[in-house]
């Protein structure tokens, strides 16, 4: 057992403050993704409503925005916002802040598209049925349309949230030290002493990501089950 612990590099975890540092890295990951997710949901709902407008100008703008997000790898967006902004207009973002911008930029587009889809999937007759009962426009939205939209939206947006969390390791490219970077630092610092530390550390990273994403998936399937009754 002792041999296994050493061989797979788990011992490295308990040297000094290594484990706390890993948790700290995970916190950076979580902080950035949760702020981005929260912003994406709020902005995405607004965008989704705008996307249902028939106005050709807003339609074209939304289209271009969505295409940019789809075509550009997130890594390119990170570089543009972090380095490009400094180069172009001398705007010096903190790397965490640049990461939040990029993730929000990406999340808002995807969320907006999901919201648009969910809104448009509510049949016209649901509105008419509500109107004919004497509900006014805002009563119809708040009692009928929005609750149904959220139910349709939830599984898809949970998927987006976990995807955003899982994409955060990219931010090491703009010098943010998050969980996987801390792991690499620890691996390197112990390269000679524990050459197999990579296994143990990435196993811990796996467990940490699992611990974050699994409850979210559980919540999603719980709500789905609850709402399908």
């Amino acid at each position, binding site marked *: 057992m002792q041999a296994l612990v050493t061989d797979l590099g788990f011992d490295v975890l308990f040297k000094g403050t290594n484990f706390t540092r890993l948790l700290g890295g995970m916190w950076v990951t979580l902080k950035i993704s949760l702020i981005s997710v929260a912003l994406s949901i709020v902005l995405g709902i607004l965008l989704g409503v705008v996307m249902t407008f028939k106005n050709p100008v807003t339609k074209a703008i939304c289209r271009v925005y969505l295409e940019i997000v789809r075509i550009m790898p997130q890594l390119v967006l990170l570089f543009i916002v972090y380095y490009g902004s400094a180069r172009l207009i001398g705007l010096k973002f903190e790397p965490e802040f640049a990461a939040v911008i990029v993730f929000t930029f990406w999340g808002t587009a995807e969320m907006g598209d999901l919201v648009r889809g969910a809104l448009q999937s509510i*049949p016209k*007759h*649901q509105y*008419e049925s509500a109107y*004919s*009962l*004497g*509900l*006014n426009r805002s009563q119809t939205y708040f009692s009928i349309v929005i*609750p149904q939209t959220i139910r349709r939206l939830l599984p898809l947006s949970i998927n987006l949230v976990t995807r955003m969390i899982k994409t955060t390791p990219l931010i090491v490219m703009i010098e943010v030290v998050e969980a996987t970077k801390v792991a690499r630092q620890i691996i390197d610092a112990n390269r000679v002493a524990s050459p197999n530390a990579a296994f143990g550390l990435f196993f811990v990273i796996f467990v940490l990501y699992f611990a974050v994403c699994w409850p979210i998936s559980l919540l999603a399937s719980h709500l789905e089950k609850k709402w399908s009754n």
Partner: protein
Amino acid sequence: MADTVLTINNINKSYGDNLILNGLSLDVHKGEVIVIIGPSGCGKSTLLRCINALEPIQGGEIRLDGELIDGNSRNIAQIRQKIGMVFQNYELFPHKTVLQNIILAPMKVQKRSKVEVTEEAEQLLERVGLLDKKNSYPRQLSGGQKQRVAIVRALCMHPEIMLFDEVTAALDPEMVREVLDTMLELAKNGSTMLIVTHEMNFARAIADRVIFLDGGEIVEEADPEDFFTYPKTERAQKFLDTFEYESVKHHDNEY
């Protein structure tokens, strides 16, 4: 005749160049049951939708108790409360239970107390034989059950007039009866009803007056017995003929 509840005066309705309703006029009296029939595309469903201001009209006017119905006016929600409408595809709210579907509008729109509305909803559900389903969700009900809930939902608002838009058209045949029985019951109790249907026997049984609509105009307007036995116009005759079948076998048997 009793008081006029609904007045339709010379209305025009078109989609682009396509004229759907052409100078149509109709008065509906309190307690009267009017059945509107006609070939598909004749504008009968559109007429109901115009009455509820779900479709704008391009000419003429519709008044309920003398009040103008206009989809753009501020008090349209107020007027719609007095008009109950039942749709072909039920249109219950899928995220709410049967009871919640029924009490939503009375509580939100009419600000009635939950206790009182729930009590009334339960009585109405009992009348249509669905009290045991009050906590079910729409997807757990059959089509016929859903349609009866939709009728109860409209009734609970105490409308002055009920509009029925081909309410049995989407139902399996064995469920049509339960819905029609519910409507007959309403008619017996003196509700004012405007019904679009293809059920000719039902129309004959329930109607005080039959309106035959074709090409956006009222072609014939008559007492149901007269209409179904001796239609006055050729168009109505032709239309009614499409519901008749000649037996191809057992020529000596009368059904």
